[in-house]
């Protein structure tokens, strides 16, 4: 800490926003202690001798005249072993530790370092004494959980020669594991480092997206994929499935690290994650999913300014893991609550409001946040990515409101949740007509070996049928379905199969909850194969009603739940029977 901490006095208190006088020299985003209770705050405006501070805790009882002390450091997070399986509030206070300190309700003024000072980690050195290292270089590793190898890196912007490196063994987080001789002296490096949350961590180079983030969710992977390093929004009114979709992605997507941010949402939803993730197993390793997960919980009843900080805390942690060369996925539920926190603080600062009371910088802040997603070549020359998935909660489910509109400018995939689908209990209620993904071109090559290069063609064909269904629904509304020509009746039937047998996916069904890419493609092509064969039958004069009433069709719609991902050959057997039945109908006619 600096020699002389800047100290001043509170001159005004308005909710979470406090003004301090006599604090010339306090810097923007500097961490400060506010009042006798030493509440944690961050400077958000400086004007001459006065600074405005947003306080991350309830300000009840705070009085003008109480002292305000600067720390000389910006709001930052601790990065090192112990992050995984942790649950933190918006400014990275460990909630489990806080519970031990203050009980079941969070009291004010509690302080605890984010990473345990008592836990020992088994460090295996990698760097050699005498070698030259730069920011990002790996000094050694710690097997943090059976699922995850934590790389201990030289902090960015530091370079020099390794003067000493610790031997393999167990160390505390604050033990020095390496000494680096730099141009300005010797730096002692510990098992952890700190990084300011509002500053993106540096990398060598930004790269185009290349591989899909496989989520095991059919409508996403097959129709509206997100690339590793991509940014996507999930907008939807209340109860449409933003949280369940985010949970599904946290559970099943093939990222090495998950950072889940409950930003201004329900406490019970964080409990659900805490209870279910340790039980759910990673499909590849069989290990509990919790072992690769970091939770940030700043629920709706926790202080609003810490909610504002929570998404930065989350994304900084994600970037740190990316810098080790991992693929990280981060879910922020909900970015609208973050935007509302921004609005509330802006109001207290008496800034000029723009649309619906949001500050005029809403859009640029959203842009800066989503820009922190990306696939990069790390400082150490490896490949890593941060994929960002942001839930949006538009008032009244109206997508023309400011947060949805501005978010759309910065994301390249948009999973539009639809209240009417949700009320039909069609889950996930992602509307296939209004959603889009610009990552399709980037990830097509990934699917080629699996699909004989047919992926694009098949998905387009299926989408064509679904679009046609939508047009025909209008016709049916006017004249009834009996009036449709036979081939169009079949289109309606196939579209139903696509909806019920492919697009719908029950998160609570043990088999359906995750679909491997192979199973996804198999289900899709099976429904399309049915369509082509049924089309031939109809051309031969078989009535569509006869095809619709084949008992096997009901089963086709249920394959998603009855066939596990590792047994998809069952689908082939089933299909050859179904297609034979249809061929028999055709032959009868001709």
């Amino acid at each position, binding site marked *: 800490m600096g020699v002389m901490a800047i100290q001043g006095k509170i001159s005004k208190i308005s909710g979470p926003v406090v003004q301090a006088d006599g604090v010339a020299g306090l810097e923007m985003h500097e961490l400060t202690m506010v009042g006798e209770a030493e509440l944690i705050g961050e400077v958000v405006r400086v004007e001459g001798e006065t600074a405005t501070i947003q306080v991350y805790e309830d300000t009840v009882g705070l009085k003008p005249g109480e002292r305000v002390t600067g720390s000389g450091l910006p709001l930052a997070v601790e990065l090192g072993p112990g992050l995984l399986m942790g649950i933190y509030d918006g400014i990275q206070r460990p909630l489990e530790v806080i519970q031990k300190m203050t009980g079941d309700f969070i009291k004010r003024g509690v302080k605890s370092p984010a990473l345990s000072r008592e836990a020992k980690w088994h460090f295996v050195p990698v760097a050699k004494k005498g070698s030259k290292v730069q920011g990002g270089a790996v000094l050694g590793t710690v097997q943090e959980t059976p699922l995850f190898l934590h790389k201990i890196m030289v902090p960015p912007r530091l370079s020099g020669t390794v003067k000493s490196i610790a031997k393999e063994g167990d160390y505390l987080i604050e033990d020095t594991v390496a000494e680096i001789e730099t141009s300005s002296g010797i730096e002692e490096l510990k098992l952890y480092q700190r990084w300011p949350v509002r500053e993106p961590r540096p990398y060598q180079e930004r790269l185009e997206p290349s591989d899909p983030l496989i989520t095991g969710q059919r409508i996403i992977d097959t129709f509206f994929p997100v690339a590793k390093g991509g940014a996507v929004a999930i907008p939807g009114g209340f109860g449409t499935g933003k949280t369940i979709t985010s949970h599904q992605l946290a559970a099943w997507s093939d990222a090495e690290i998950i950072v889940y941010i409950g930003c201004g949402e329900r406490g019970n939803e964080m409990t659900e994650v805490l209870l279910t993730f340790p039980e759910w197993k990673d499909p590849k390793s069989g290990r509990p999913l919790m072992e690769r997960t970091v939770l940030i919980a700043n629920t709706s009843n926790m202080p609003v300014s810490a909610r504002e900080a929570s998404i930065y805390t989350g994304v900084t942690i994600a970037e740190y893991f990316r810098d080790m060369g991992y693929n990280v996925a981060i879910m922020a539920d909900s970015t609208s609550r973050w935007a509302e*926190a921004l609005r509330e603080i802006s*109001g207290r600062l008496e800034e000029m409001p723009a649309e619906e009371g949001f500050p005029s910088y809403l859009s640029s802040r959203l842009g800066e946040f989503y820009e922190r997603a990306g696939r990069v070549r790390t400082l150490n020359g490896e490949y890593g990515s941060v994929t960002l998935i942001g839930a949006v909660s538009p008032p009244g489910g109206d997508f023309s409101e400011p947060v949805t509109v501005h978010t759309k400018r910065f994301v390249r995939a948009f999973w539009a949740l639809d209240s009417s689908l949700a009320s039909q209990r069609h889950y996930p209620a992602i509307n296939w007509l209004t959603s889009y993904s610009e990552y399709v071109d980037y990830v097509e090559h990934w699917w080629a070996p699996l699909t004989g290069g047919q992926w694009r063609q098949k998905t387009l064909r299926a989408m064509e049928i679904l679009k046609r269904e939508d047009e025909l629904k209008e016709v049916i509304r006017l004249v009834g379905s009996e009036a449709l020509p036979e081939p169009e009746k079949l289109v309606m039937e196939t579209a139903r199969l696509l909806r019920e047998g492919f697009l719908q996916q029950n998160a609570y069904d043990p088999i359906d909850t995750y679909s491997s890419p192979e199973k996804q493609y198999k289900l899709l092509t099976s429904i399309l194969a049915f369509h082509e064969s049924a089309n031939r039958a109809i051309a031969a004069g078989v009535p569509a009603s006869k095809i619709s009433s084949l008992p096997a069709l009901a089963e086709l719609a249920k394959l998603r739940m009855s066939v596990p991902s590792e047994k998809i050959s069952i689908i082939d057997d089933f299909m050859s029977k179904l297609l034979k039945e249809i061929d028999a109908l055709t032959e009868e006619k001709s």
Partner: protein
Amino acid sequence: MALPMEYNSIQRISGPLLFVEGISNVGFNELVEIRSEGGIMRRGRVLEITKDIAAVEIFEGTTGLSTTQTSVRFLGRPLTIPLSMEMLGRVFNGLGEPMDGGPPPFTEDYRDVNGLPMNPFSRDYPTQFIQTGVSAIDGMDTLVRGQKLPIFSGSGLPHNLLATQVARQATIPGEESSFAVVFAAMGIKHDEAAFFKRSFEESGALKSSAIFLNLADDPPVERLVTPRSALTFAEYLAFERDMHVLVIITDMTNYAEALREISAAREEVPSRKGYPGYMYSDFASIYERAGRIKGKKGSITQMPVLTMPNDDITHPIPDLTGYITEGQIVLDRDLHRRGIYPPINILPSLSRLMKDGIGKGKTREDHGAVASQLYSAYARSQDLRSLSAIIGEEGLTEKDRAYLKFGDAFEQRFLSQRFDENRDLEATMRLAWKMLSILPEAELTRIADHFVKQYYSRE
């Protein structure tokens, strides 16, 4: 401790706000006592404070206050209410002061009405079925202990009747202890208040309940405190006295109006429809005070009631509520007009915690599948009802007509019940199967065959 300083330096009064000059040593959100001409006492709290001016929000309103004849004392603590078991069986105003003529409850224990946020790590997930005795709720949108499940109503609909029915009937099957009911009423009419008091007294439920009343002609600012007083008491019962508490809060619409009024008086930048931008967080600070805590016996289940302005579910009050609560029970004007009580429209209704509170060992193994089948059959019957209005019933197939018949029976027999009719889960399930048996057996695609074999029976 020295008596707090008294100030007479009122700078101005605006709406429910009073600005006091020349103050010192005053804390944010502190409780304030205001004495006006004739010694009338009011209370308020500090909303904003600078070196020498405090903005004070007056719970009882500012009518009759002047800048010259008013004196103000800052009490150095936030608004608290007393807590004791003696409060059960009593009626209070929104600030927790007795309104039933009885003495103030004896206690040493005072607690800040704003409470503290529950640590998410401390929460325990709600999984226990609460039997309300109302088929539409138990069968279709099951309430779970520790859940917050609001009633979305409209003006003139029987939400109060339903809320009292639930309060009276709610039990956990197989457990002796029933619920303590904490009732918070904001801005309700005198006859409504009388109705609540009477029905609590008649059912004998009053001795295990506490009522916090703010009437329509009481000051709006007190409405902001009423649910917080009630929840502070509920937290005491649940987490210090091991009780299961059902908190009924009515009507959140009146609460939101009061919030808007004060926001306007403070000249804040409004968000949608003039409501303040922080209404979501403010609502959350009430609704999130439901739940369970690991290692504690008690629980808080919330059933807030709100009336949707113009029956519009996208209005900010129901909208922001729906974003926080764990589902909603939606009342329907059309069902009400047709004389169906309770007029619950199951289609937009949802209990998000139902899946964890039902099934084998909790309710019945077929419960989930039956609810899902009833839901889809009723949705279909509603579609067919509008179709047959266009093309006539003759244009429908026999199967379609079975669905129409099902729809009518579902409304008349399953949904409908008397205000004093308490159906246990078995009765609800029996009725559900009766309804499903109106449909051809082959239609029951969402239910496993062995259940169909066991329960399906054509009359």
